[in-house]
């Protein structure tokens, strides 16, 4: 994981975006 410099920031960005997206998905659905 530490071999590629941009992998760690990407990891954080992906996690923050994914958590926000899934949280929003739960909020958004109307089943």
């Amino acid at each position, binding site marked *: 994981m530490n071999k590629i410099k941009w992998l760690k920031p990407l990891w954080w960005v992906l996690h923050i975006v994914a958590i926000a997206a*899934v949280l929003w*998905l*739960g909020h958004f659905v109307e*089943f």
Partner: protein
Amino acid sequence: MKNKIKILLISGLLFVSIGGGWLHYKYHPYASTGFGWVPFIVGLIAIFLVPVLFYFRKTLNLAYLLNGFSVIIGVITMAHFSLESGPLWANIVTLLSKFVIGRAIFCLEVYPLDSNPKPKGWGLIRYPNLGFWYVHFVAWTAVYFLGYHFWR
């Protein structure tokens, strides 16, 4: 032969994705219900993007991740739908085949055919092992539940 198997598996993935996207489109076209956009967009990615990404070694990891997470999102939302509205358990089981095919393509490309890698400790739940997917499935379910239950 390896390349042939890869193409066969990618075709299998493509057929399941087309079938799944088709079913969704028939059940709820994206325009009639708001949430219909979710399977529509995920379906477009699964049909047009993921098979292509699986074909090239450089984009294999991205394909593996997109495929796995599209299955997770489908399992969670359809399980939720099954509990609230109407049972879709059979569709969920069908969707799981996509995960397995994606994993098969990944393993075919990454590991030698006669190898038997056995991750230990934290390696069990780290990419690209199966535990990584279990952990993310549980985490996505928890976050989805928080959004559904508390963000009203």
